[in-house]
């Protein structure tokens, strides 16, 4: 039974009240590959990225108009249905903020009810690996669409396809400034230069691709590689957004704009790329996706996520080999993970993040949906607002980032609140189902000695078992 608890908690998102304990843990995990729904109704009903690009353009226009009309901002204007929590200059983005809040709630609610919690965890893992952050206003509305459109459909495919989908998604192109990167010798670059306009290369995305998305930091590339990749990627931009008609493109969405692409061959990691236009950047990304350093980087992050903060070298090696041998076939890597002994270690080595802990707690009490506002408040309060890691590096996956005194105190407060809102459950029975064969004696005693069923449930949600996976 011990392994059922590992499957539920370390691989999955925590047991769900009323759901049967998986009797064959490995089979239960593998079967999820065939059952995963990449486009469930809960997200297909949300606006897709083309509509969100248009909405952003309109919001930006409204903001500029506001600024032109009243440079002192219209904070003093009475009766503008002011919401106290939004700065006047950001008011035009209210609609996008609502989109964000709804998408974030959809993400939570999917995780609360999913029949494939392991694959859902992988979605979260990859969304964090390829992080965008909504503290950049251009990302606010579209962060959810990024995960739903670029990550979800590709978590059970090849890493190459995942990488290409991510780097072409408007959210990523906008978040890491690729959309405005212009080849100095491109058609538009030359025109701009003649007019004395400063338009040029932005290497933000190129650097993060090498450092975060593929090879990993200090893995052998140098500044020359960054610049060359940045040149190769010029032209990868977002249509439907720019002010200049020349850069509007065919419509809102990813667009390769040949007029800003830097012509010529590129040399990255010692290899020459002589392709034209879009195919050049794609060829480099395809090579990066299956590079041994990428295999090691991805293997290390997966091992850290599923085994321990300090990933066991044996597991890293195993995942790395599976990645290289299969050409970055992700299900092959996941299978290697499931078959490896390290993730099945008995003691829970991972301190749950606020996201993990909240999902596990809500699933434990059988919550089906978290209202939009409660969703935002909960994760804000616990210190991990959805899609707002604040950096392209994503949220840290190590205990010291999450196991803080105040963080723990807040969890305990939320635990009591969740329990107080839940109809009576026998926490003693529930605990055995959530942690089959893995419940500690002190926790069992604490639950048995609680003064009320509600208090027992709150203690279960605050228990050491619940804090880790």
């Amino acid at each position, binding site marked *: 039974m011990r392994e059922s608890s590992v499957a539920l908690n370390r691989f999955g998102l925590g047991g769900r009240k009323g759901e049967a304990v998986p009797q064959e843990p490995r089979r239960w995990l593998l079967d999820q590959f065939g059952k995963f729904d990449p486009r469930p109704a809960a997200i297909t009903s949300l606006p897709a990225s083309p509509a969100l690009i248009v909405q952003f353009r309109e919001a930006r226009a409204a903001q500029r108009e506001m600024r032109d009309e009243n440079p002192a901002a219209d904070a003093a204007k009475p009766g503008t249905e002011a919401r106290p929590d939004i700065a006047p200059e950001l008011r035009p983005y209210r609609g996008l903020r609502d989109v964000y809040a709804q998408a974030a709630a959809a993400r939570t609610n999917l995780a609360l009810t999913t029949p494939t919690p392991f694959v859902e965890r992988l979605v979260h893992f990859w969304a964090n690996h390829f992080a965008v952050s909504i503290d950049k206003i251009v990302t606010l509305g579209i962060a959810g669409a990024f995960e739903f459109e670029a990550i979800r459909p590709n978590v059970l495919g090849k890493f190459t396809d995942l990488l290409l989908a991510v780097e072409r998604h408007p959210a990523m192109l906008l978040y890491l400034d690729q959309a405005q990167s212009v080849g100095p010798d491109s058609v538009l670059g030359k025109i701009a230069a003649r007019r004395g306009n400063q338009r040029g290369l932005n290497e933000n995305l190129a650097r993060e691709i090498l450092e975060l998305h593929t090879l990993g930091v200090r893995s052998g590339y140098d500044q020359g590689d960054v610049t060359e990749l940045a040149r190769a990627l010029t032209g990868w931009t977002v249509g439907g957004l720019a002010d200049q008609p020349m850069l509007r493109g065919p419509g809102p969405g990813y667009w390769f704009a040949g007029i800003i692409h830097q012509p010529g061959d590129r040399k990255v990691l010692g290899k020459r790329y002589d392709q034209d236009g879009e195919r050049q950047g794609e060829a480099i990304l395809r090579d990066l996706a299956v590079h041994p350093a990428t295999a090691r980087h991805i293997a290390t992050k997966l091992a850290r996520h599923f085994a321990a903060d300090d990933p066991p070298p044996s597991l890293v090696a195993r995942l790395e080999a599976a990645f290289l041998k299969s050409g970055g076939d992700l299900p092959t890597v996941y299978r290697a993970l499931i078959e490896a002994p390290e993730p099945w270690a008995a003691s829970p080595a991972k*301190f749950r993040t606020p996201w993990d802990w909240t999902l596990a707690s809500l699933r434990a009490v059988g919550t089906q949906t978290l209202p939009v506002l409660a969703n935002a408040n909960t994760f804000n309060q616990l210190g991990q607002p959805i899609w707002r890691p604040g950096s392209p590096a994503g949220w840290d996956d190590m205990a010291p980032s999450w*196991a*803080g*005194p*105040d963080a*723990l*105190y807040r969890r*305990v*407060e939320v635990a*009591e*609140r969740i329990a107080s809102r839940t109809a009576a459950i026998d926490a003693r029975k529930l605990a055995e189902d959530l942690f089959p064969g893995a419940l*500690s004696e*002190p*926790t069992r005693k*604490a639950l048995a000695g*609680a*003064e009320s069923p509600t*208090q027992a449930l*709150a*203690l279960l949600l*605050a*228990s*050491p078992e619940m*804090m880790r996976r």
Partner: protein
Amino acid sequence: MIDRRSLLARGALLTGALFAPRLAYAAAPTQKRLVFLIQRGAADGLATLAPTGDPAYERLRGELADIGAGTKLDGLFTLHGSLGQLAGRYQAGEALFVHATASPYRDRSHFDGQNVLETGGRLPYDRDDGWMNRLIGLLPSGDAKALALSPAIPTALRGAATASSYAPTNLPDASPEFLQRVARLYADDAQLHDLWSEAVQTRAMAGELASDGGRGAAAAGKLAASLMTGPEGARLVMMESGGWDTHAGQRGRLANQLTGLDAMLAALRDGLGSAWADTLVIVATEFGRTAAVNGTGGTDHGTGGMAMLLGGRVKGGRILTDWPGLSQSALYEGRDLRPTTSLDTVLAGAIAGHFGLDPVLTARRLFPGGAGKALEGLIRA
């Protein structure tokens, strides 16, 4: 109204067969009151009652050697400059200070140290009930109305006997009872235990004495006094104060803390009026702080500390200490003031003297983890 027969029955039950006469005396209702003020966070005894006459003092303390315009109490000790009213009580013979004292606890975790101080046990978490709660069982029921001035019932007052709590401020979201159970749930989990203790400490800081230049503290003292007066008033009161964990910038912070403490004690005495003569106030903290100043103008968790006894019948105007000195070889583990007086013997002696209880029985019942003895002669008959 006190039912005389049940009172006698209760007294008989407690005394056992033929116990000391003093217990029989205790079975008669009195007007005695006890206030236990815990300083959570390890108050710096070496700054509160500074051994300015110790040759190593200036060198160890550096910038912290300056304790304001203090009151020189004898050749060795100076009371901190922020404790002007307390100095007056000392001079009036109503305040007694105990220095280089400690509970049986010898590590440096706030949470564990407070647990030992409050339970009277030998080790953290080896008992669930507190010494103050067990004291209730030794007193006639009319003397035993217990109250904590805090949202939670603190560990010292927890146990079989009934105690209530009252906090005028907004309660935190999580209920105190629940938070205490969480603390016990984490007791065996080193990581969560440490995090939790730190969190509770930090939260306690929010209500520290230092706020409003002592006005808040004075109000707390006044409130406590008001809840203790009149026939229905509480007889055993526990008060908590936080903000003593001065790892950095101690000089100003501690001065503010002590200003608050001084104001609170004065307000308590004023509010109690004539009942002050029947009141014993104990001020104690979980342990002391390092002898030397650290790199951030503060001090770190130490061992030996100080405690105070105040009240109308305290044999005060003196300092009770077997001063170990601050020379390097005298320091405990080379860094802390060496504890030379068991705090439990002092508390047991004072409480027994105050309530007229048998000293040894009191020591054993209230502080089973202690030395099993009680220092007598701390209270005037």
